[in-house]
Structure formats: structure tokens, C-alpha cells
């Protein structure tokens, strides 16, 4: 579905002819298809973000010995939708002294940064909007735009706490950006390509071929550095220094309300899912299944896995039965069936979403467990721990690569 050529060609075509009668040709159709695909992707990202918000609230609730949202829909699954509607109906307050154009532009920009990067994310071998041959570079470039939006928001608010948030964000982007980029390099070295499809393709053949388990112990370390840096990039605890609720009130989005505020919110979750998706793509074999074929013992591991799954489900359902929690049983049943269905019909999508989901859960788990770092500690960690570690990784992986080849 690589159609960037088509768009360029169409523009050239219109420019040269100034005649719109020629517009309904193959090029236009390609363009229209791109627009439709873009809208579909936007819808997907929004829904994905909403589900993520709900998941966060449920996970947070259960970690904290409570239930989380329970009122809107079954176990609150429509809560995000209700909140979205509420925020849309709220007054969109723009402070008098704010820089109005920048203030309005900032939230869409932050969201755009997260959303645009989805264009190259390979959900499966075919479900990818554009397989750019510089995919990794594109993601790095586009996601770093988000910080511009954050600084814009903080500056345009013309208020002191948001300004602090913006300044912190600006100070941090140079800190986590370096280890983030450096931790991607070993992957590129192993794959010899910047295209995400090729990176995934290179990890085919089972779990042991994932980049995570190459060049031991260097690639796991690279993954760790990448994951920690992505936490910082998405403003997540323990690095939510730019919004730091207890210090800066709300950080850069203190002055925002209504739909603009919710855009920041959705952007954060889209960016989180994106980071998880990129981590899964770069290190965990992307959409490829973790088959055990390469272990040389075809049946046994798979049999054991099935057995474990069966026992787990049996245990869950009997416990539901004993406690008469049929609604939960139903939930698990639907979830299991949906998972199985997805697995059988779109195995690539299933594995991609599973891996992303697991990483996402780790992010949530960290958020609801850890306190926040101070900004100088965070910078110390990025510059003096992660960056040298990433360099050592790079060196180690390249040496390993030379030795292996």
C-alpha cells in the first residue's frame, strides 16, 4: 500500500494541467483511498486510545483494591465514551492572556505527532498504511514533534505552572532522546534496514529469532533502555515530570479544558500504545507468532502451552462458578473467544495486539507502583546511565555481529 508516489504524482499532475476534468483518474482514486485509509486509521487510533484509557482505569482500580469504573456499560467499558462526550460538551476555556492561536494549535499538534506515526506501524504483513523504507527514522522524527506541541501549550497558556511543565519537557527531550535513538541502532544493525516490515521479517522463525534474544546480553539491555526511554517520551510515571500533578498542578495542560484537554489525554494514550507497538515491532518480533518450531521439538511445547491455557481457564471458570460470578465468567469467555477468533482469522493482528497489550500493561503496572523521579535525577539517569549503557550495547552488538558473521 505504498502510495506516497501517487500523491506526489497527483499534485504534479494538477499543477501542470490546471484542469480538474482530469482529476477522476487512477491517481485520484489512489489519493481518495489514502484519505479513506487515513480516516479509518484515525478512528482506529481514537478507539484504541479510549480502550486504553478504560484499561488504565480498570487496572489502576484493581491494583488499588477497588473496582474502577463500573457504571457506564458493563464494568464501565463505555466510560471513556461518556467522558469524551462530557468533555466535548464542556466549555472550552481560553485564558484571556493566552496566545490564542498557539493555545488552540498545541493539542492537535501533540495528538498529530502520536497519530501520524501510526501510518508506518505494521499491524500485520499487510495492514500497514505505508511501508516507508525509512520507517524507524520517520517514527523518531514524527513522535519528537509532540514535545513541540507541549512546549507550545505551556508557553501559550501564559501561566507559570504550565511554563514550568513546558520547560521541563524541553529539558527532558534532549535527555531521553539520545538513549532512545541509540537503543534503536542495534536493531537496525541486525536487520540492515530502516523499514519496519523488513525489521519484522528478519525476526521470523520463532521466539528465539526475536531481536530481544539476539546478541545476548546486549539486545535485552537495548530493549530495557528503549522501554525506559519510551516511558519518558510518553510522560509516564516514573517520568511524568512535565505534568507532575503534585508539583506543577497539571503541568503544561493546566489551563486546558473541554475537548482540547481530552486531545492531550488521547494523545498520551496513543503515544503509549505507539511506543509499545514500536517496542514490539523492533524487539519482540512484531506481528510474528512466537512459534517454538526452531527448538527442534515440534509438538511438546505447543502441547504444554495448550494444556496450561486449558488448566488456567478451567481454574478461572470453576472459581467463577463457585463464587457465582457469572458476569465475570461471561467476560472471560467472550474475551477468550474473541482472542481465539482473532488468532485463527488474523493471527498477525492477534500477536501484534497481544504483545503491545502486554507492554502496555507493564507501563500501567509501573505507573501505579512507582513514585516520580526528580528532574535532575531523571537527567542523571538518561545521560549518565542510559546513554553509556546504550553505547556499550551498540559496541557489544556490533562486535557480536562481526563475530557472528
Amino acid at each position, binding site marked *: 500500500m505504498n502510495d506516497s508516489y501517487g500523491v506526489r504524482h497527483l499534485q504534479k499532475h494538477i499543477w501542470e494541467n490546471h484542469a480538474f476534468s482530469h482529476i477522476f483518474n487512477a491517481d485520484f482514486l489512489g489519493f481518495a483511498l489514502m484519505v479513506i485509509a487515513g480516516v479509518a486509521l484515525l478512528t482506529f487510533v481514537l478507539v484504541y486510545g479510549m480502550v486504553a484509557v478504560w484499561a488504565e482505569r480498570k487496572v*489502576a482500580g484493581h*491494583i*488499588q*483494591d*477497588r473496582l474502577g469504573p463500573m457504571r457506564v456499560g458493563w464494568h464501565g467499558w463505555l466510560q471513556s465514551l461518556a467522558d469524551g462526550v462530557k468533555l466535548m460538551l464542556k466549555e472550552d476555556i481560553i485564558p484571556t492572556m493566552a496566545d490564542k492561536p498557539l493555545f488552540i494549535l498545541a493539542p492537535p499538534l501533540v495528538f498529530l505527532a502520536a497519530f501520524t506515526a501510526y501510518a508506518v506501524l505494521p499491524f500485520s504483513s499487510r495492514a500497514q498504511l505505508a511501508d516507508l523504507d525509512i520507517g524507524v527514522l520517520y517514527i523518531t522524527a514524527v513522535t519528537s514533534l509532540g514535545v513541540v506541541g507541549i512546549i507550545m501549550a505551556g508557553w501559550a497558556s501564559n501561566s*507559570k*505552572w504550565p511554563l*514550568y511543565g513546558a*520547560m*521541563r519537557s524541553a529539558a527532558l527531550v534532549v535527555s531521553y532522546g539520545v538513549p532512545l535513538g541509540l537503543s534503536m541502532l542495534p536493531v537496525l544493525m541486525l536487520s540492515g534496514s530502516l523499514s519496519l516490515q523488513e525489521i519484522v521479517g528478519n525476526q521470523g522463525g520463532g521466539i528465539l529469532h526475536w531481536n530481544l534474544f539476539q546478541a545476548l546480553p546486549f539486545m535485552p539491555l537495548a530493549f530495557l533502555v528503549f522501554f525506559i526511554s519510551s516511558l519518558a517520551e510518553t510522560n509516564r*510515571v*516514573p517520568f*511524568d515530570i512535565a505534568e*507532575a*500533578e*503534585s*508539583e*506543577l*498542578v497539571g503541568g503544561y495542560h493546566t489551563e486546558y479544558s473541554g475537548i482540547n484537554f481530552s486531545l492531550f489525554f488521547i494523545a498520551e494514550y496513543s503515544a503509549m500504545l505507539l511506543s509499545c507497538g514500536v517496542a514490539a515491532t523492533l524487539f519482540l518480533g512484531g506481528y510474528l507468532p512466537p512459534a517454538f518450531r526452531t527448538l527442534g521439538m515440534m509438538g511438546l511445547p505447543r502441547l504444554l502451552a495448550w494444556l496450561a491455557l486449558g488448566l488456567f481457564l478451567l481454574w478461572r471458570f470453576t472459581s467463577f462458578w463457585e463464587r457465582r460470578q457469572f458476569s465475570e465468567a461471561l467476560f472471560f469467555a467472550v474475551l477468550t473467544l474473541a482472542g481465539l477468533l482473532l488468532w485463527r482469522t488474523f493471527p498477525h493482528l492477534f500477536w501484534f495486539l497481544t504483545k503491545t497489550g502486554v507492554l502496555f500493561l507493564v507501563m500501567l503496572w509501573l*505507573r*501505579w*507502583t*512507582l*513514585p*516520580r*523521579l*526528580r*528532574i*535532575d*535525577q531523571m537527567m542523571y539517569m538518561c545521560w549518565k546511565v542510559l546513554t553509556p549503557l546504550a553505547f556499550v550495547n551498540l559496541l557489544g552488538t556490533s562486535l557480536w555481529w562481526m563475530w557472528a558473521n
Partner: protein
Amino acid sequence: MTSSREFRSQEIYVNMGPQHPSTHGVLRLMLRTDGEIVSDVAPMIGYLHRCAEKYGESGTYQMMIPYTDRMDYLAGMNCNWAYCLAVEKLGNVVVPERAEYIRILVGELNRIASHLIAFGTYGLDLGAFTPFFYALDEREKILDLFEMVCGARLTYSYFRIGGVAADLPEGWVKRCHEFIDFFRKRIDEFNELLTYNYIFIRRTANIGVIPANMAVDYGCTGPVLRGSGMRRDTRVDEPYGLYPRLRFHIPIGMGEKGSVGDCWDRYMVRIREMEQSCDIIKQVLKSMPEKGDVRAKVPKAFKPPKGEVYVRSESSKGELGFYLISDGTDRPYRVKARSPSLSNLCVLPAISDGMMIADLVATLGSLDIVMGEIDR
């Protein structure tokens, strides 16, 4: 912080509060900051001033008790107790033994409840949300116990001059036992979750160090003073009630993770005090008489003889004292409360020079102030 002084840029003034997530109520801090570095802090108080002392002077002695609930609203029982102690000393009232034991029970339970809030909100201040919910979960159980005793969950007014309002209801002792046994294990869980967390230690150790002499100079009391390594506790130094009969330990800050008197020490003193309170409650439950009066005979028109008295007691925040002057009528001539939170807050500007904003929040949280008590 000398290096940051050399590169000083334009300083700005920021209002932290009175509406700010981590100023614990309506405290307003005027900050002069140079980027992230705070160069001056000026606490502005009075947003919660309700003339509690004046009210006390306009009513009878009994009528002040509900106002004391609202002073340190996180430790209402302790405030009740402090006031009643002063009035009893003024009027030479002897409290029955069982009432004294009940007072210790609810007082120590309230100390745990107050320290739980301190623990939970301290986590919030540092960006950890979950400890707050864990703490509130346990606090709810204490409030349930209080509800059984007096029907209220926050403003108890359970104490009376010469005793307490009512005897413990049936089954209360058993539930209290259950709670204490369960809670001791929960403290270990709290420690695992927050206390020994690496990030938490990095955020609190060596931050906001209050040297012992400074703590004394500023009149700090309670966990703040003990966190600086001073083994001072009114329950032991100037015992009241039946505390001399009980054996307990006074935890002090020892600079385990940083230097003596840092935020971690103050925090840890509270955690250890919760353990000690559990021990005290266990001892009381064991040695309490089964039956007995819970209220001395005090006339409704209670008129203590002329005189003045200052009585201090150990509330969860520190030394809570009441100064009363009686002119022989049924109304006090003067009521003055010496609230520990006020003195503890006063030390903040002295130690916050050159701190980062995040550290200021950590230090403020470790002082555990309650605005209701500061403004009264």
C-alpha cells in the same frame, strides 16, 4: 547549590496554593524561584481561620469540645483529649480508670489513622498513587471502629470532661484486636510498596534536612522533632493518662538512608510510630478493666476555680497544648491552643532555600501539616 547561584537568571514569583494539589488544604506558599530552584518560601496562612479559640471563650467549657474536633480534623480524638486534659487539670477532675484506657485506645487508633493519611498523601506528593488507597483502606477500618464508639467518622466529640461519652459497644474489643493483628502485617506491605522503594529513597533521603538544634529552635515537635534525632515525646517526658503503665518505644530518625533529620527519617518515624501504637493498643486491650465508669460526675454547669493552666499532650502531629484561664464562671476566660503543625510549618522557609520545587513538595509533605490546626 552554589553553582546555580552563579548562573542566576530572572526570578519569578509563583503562588503555590491555596488551591494546589500538594499543599494539604489551603496553605499558600509564595515561592521566589529561579527556574526549578526555589530561593525563597513564604507560607501564607489564614485561609481556614474559623475563630475556634474565640468560640471557645464564648461558650461553656463543654461547648468547646466539638470545635477541637475541627482543629486537627485528621486526629479529632487527640484534640478532644488535649482540651479535656486541660479542663480536667483546671477543675481537678479525676477520670475513671476505664475511661482513661478507652482514651488511650481511641487516641492511639486516631494516631494511626492520622499517620496513615500522612503516609498516603506523602506518596501522592511524590507521584505514587497506590499507597494512598492502601492507607485509606486501613483508615476506613479505624473509622468504622470510631463509628461504633461514637457514631461519627471524622468529628467525634467523643471525649467529655471527666471521661468519654459512652462505653465501648459490644464486640468492639474483638474487632479492634482483629484490626490490629491485620494491620501489623499491612505495615510490612506499605514498607515494601513505598518505604524501601529505590526512587522513594532517592527522593527523600538527604532532602529537607532539619538539624536537631534547628528543630528545637523552631519549636518543632512530634515526628518532625523525633525525625531529627531527638527522643522527645510528651507521652513519656510529661506523662498524662495511663501512659506510665504502658511500655512502648519512641522511634527516632537515625539517618538510615541519608542524614539524620531528612524527609525519609521523618516519614519512617511515622511508620514506626504506627507499629508502636499497635503495641500500645494491644497492651491496653489486655490490661483494661472489664467494667467500670467511663465518666466522672461532673456538673452540667461546670465551674472550675479561678486560675490558669497549660497542659500539653502528644497528638499525632506533635505537642498539642491548651492554655486555659478560668475566671470562676462556666465559660473560659481565655482558650489558646498551641498547635504543633504551626511550629512545624514555620521551619519550612529555613530549610527550603536552594531546593528544587519537587524537593519542596517532598519536604512539605514530610512535615505533615493540617491547615485546620494551623489556622484554627
